[in-house]
């Protein structure tokens, strides 16, 4: 039995108990005052310490197998965890690039040795990870990267320049794509490297709100052992596309984030007493609807995923290929459906924050200069948090593959329209 029936929104007993447990732990443990900004030394320490506390409580990586510090909860329970986490306004996950992007990739493409070596440390934020994909000349055109890995005794030497790497200024390790052959897609290898290694130089970059949320990474003959190749040599593109699926899909920006923001928005709207402007009220309502749509859509996906994990009973004779089912499966199964999710959450995030700023009116511009590049959505009352959240939301349609790129992927790969020229 799936925890959420097709026409039933009630959670089963086990899931409800899980929600209650998470809620009460967070209520007792989330710091009442916000931690210092994550890109400062104090903030770095505080956010790592928070991760260790979560890990000690068994709540850092609930969806992972128990062997690596997780609790092996169902996809639906993971969504519930995320809802509770954001509802409680718990600190930003300093290691989100590791937890939400690299870890799923390790589960699919890593070796048992890599998983055992890297995952437990990641779960406790002993190692904080940065994603080093983009280069000055290769953003949307990721396959155009020029940084290379050259064979050497027992490993590889990395050279080149990466940029816009979130958290790289404070992270311990990074994962990225490097050119190992001439073929545009089949000449790339996925490698993990130590940001403190000889030959690595990191330059923090200030963002529009003032925070140094991302950084440039210069690599000069940086040695990486063979053990840190993820997937096969020259197969990095395939591995990267699996990471990208997690970045665009539910993993990086779970619905809980937006349901919490929508609730705060509704509270702000009630407080602001601006119910009289129908245009603003309509936008509050539209934001609430969209956040709920993302939440319900994800419940459906999660439930389906759980069902897919359990072996299917053989189809009754003559009903093996009902067209409706085939269509639905094709959409989901294409692997590109995550692009739809990405466009949806990123537009939703901007919309929620835009309305909040409009409700705050001339006070919206004050306070909160620091846009944290993994920022938290705003508080009901605070202009600071909404402004930070707005700046952060504006990056959503850019990172994880711009929304222009996603729309083309949706049109061509999901909907099957003819491929355009690139």
């Amino acid at each position: 039995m799936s925890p959420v029936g097709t026409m039933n929104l009630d959670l089963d007993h086990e899931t409800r108990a899980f929600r209650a447990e998470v809620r009460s732990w967070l209520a007792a443990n989330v710091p009442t005052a916000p931690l210092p900004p994550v890109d400062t030394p104090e903030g770095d320490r505080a956010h790592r310490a928070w991760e260790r506390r979560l890990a000690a409580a068994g709540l850092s990586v609930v969806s992972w197998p128990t062997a690596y510090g997780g609790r092996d909860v169902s996809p639906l329970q993971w969504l519930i965890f995320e809802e509770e986490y954001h509802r409680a306004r718990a600190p930003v996950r300093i290691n989100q690039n590791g937890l939400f992007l690299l870890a799923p990739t390790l589960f699919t493409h890593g070796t048992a040795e890599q998983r055992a070596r890297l995952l437990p440390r990641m779960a406790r934020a002993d190692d904080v990870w940065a994603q080093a994909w983009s280069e000055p000349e290769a953003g949307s055109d990721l396959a155009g990267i020029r940084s290379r890995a050259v064979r050497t005794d027992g490993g590889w030497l990395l050279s080149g320049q990466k940029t816009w790497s979130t958290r790289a200024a404070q992270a311990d390790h990074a994962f990225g794509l490097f050119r190992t052959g001439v073929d545009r897609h089949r000449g790339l290898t996925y490698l993990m490297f130590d940001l403190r290694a000889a030959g690595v130089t990191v330059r923090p970059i200030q963002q529009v709100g003032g925070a140094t949320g991302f950084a440039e990474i210069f690599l000069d003959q940086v040695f990486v052992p063979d053990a840190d190749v993820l997937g096969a040599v020259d197969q990095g593109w395939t591995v990267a596309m699996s990471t990208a699926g997690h970045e665009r899909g539910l993993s990086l920006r779970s619905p809980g984030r937006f349901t919490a923001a929508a609730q705060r928005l509704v509270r702000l709207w009630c407080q602001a007493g601006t119910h009289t402007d129908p245009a603003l009220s309509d936008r509050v309502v539209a934001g609430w609807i969209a956040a709920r749509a993302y939440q319900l859509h994800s419940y459906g996906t999660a439930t389906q995923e759980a069902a897919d994990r359990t072996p299917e009973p053989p189809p009754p004779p003559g009903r093996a290929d009902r067209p409706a089912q085939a269509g639905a499966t094709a959409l989901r199964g294409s692997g590109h459906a995550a692009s739809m999710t990405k466009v949806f959450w990123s537009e939703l995030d901007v919309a929620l924050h835009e309305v909040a700023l409009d409700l705050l009116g001339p006070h919206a511009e004050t306070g909160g200069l620091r846009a944290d590049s993994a920022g938290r959505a705003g508080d009901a009352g605070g202009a600071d948090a909404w402004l930070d959240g707005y700046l952060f939301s504006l990056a959503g349609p850019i990172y994880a593959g711009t929304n222009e790129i996603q729309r083309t992927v949706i049109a061509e790969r999901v909907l099957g329209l003819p491929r355009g020229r690139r």
Partner: protein
Amino acid sequence: MKLTPSAEQEQFAAALHAMLTEADIPTVARQWAADDPAPGQVLWRRLAELGVTGLAVPARWGGLAAHPADLVVACEELGHHALPGPAAESIAALPMLLTTLGDDALCETWLPRLANGEVIGTLAVPPHVPYATDADVVSLVLRADEQTLRLGVPGPRRRSVDDTRRLVEVADGALLATGPAVGPAVGHALNAGALACAAQLLGAGHALLETTLRYAGQRTQFGQPIGQFQAVKHQLADVAIGLEFARPLLYAAAVALADHPTTTARDVSAAKVACADAAQRAARTALQVHGAIGYARESGLGSWLTRIWALARTWGTQSWHRERIRTALATGALT
């Protein structure tokens, strides 16, 4: 009714543009934000030499007594260059407020000096303009409401997302005026400020469109300029359409402010709503088309983005302006 700039206005705009281009505004703005307002103050004197600061000041008090359309032309240019300083306040709202109030002593004290650039002024009009912008670096600070006009006493400073906007809370100082004349004067000042604000928004939006068009022509991905992708073209086309159709509303509002008191509120509000929407669309698109580099402070795009985010919500929110239009339409001001 003429809704496009005249030849003289175009010349005026060109002269202003040339001066501001030469002035290295990004550096001046950084200094202004970093508590070094001197270079900005020098620049404001140059504005005075070109006549900008005296546009809304009557000839009797040393100004040019220009049409509000000239004010629009000037403010659009100031917005285009993201000039730091309280432009809507000092150039538009304050002169209109003092002139409409008609207190000769006040006019004589302040208007000639506002016109010749000796004084930069600012004001708070809560709740629409809750802070007096740059009150800590200018020499005239007022605080107005429906009933009273007072000197403003600068208090704590609040930071703005646009770090050149030095937002200062002001407390009540000496009473300057009270009585039935104050309300209409403050109302007129609000309209003038909103108009100047709308013009700056339009100018800033155009600046972003131009910068972004340049970038889209230069940046290549997938072996071609990104401007060649239809998804990029369409977004920029929509920005251009928004800005193009906001401008006539701006000029109509200037005409109304000069000659049609019954439709001023409606027309100024329509201009503010359209310019703010168009500028905000320009801001989002500029950032989107630049990609990550637009999000990095060193690209400089932020000066316009943050200015737009701030100006779009001050001198009356979009909600307040829409409400004024609704009221005007419902009460039959249909001309």
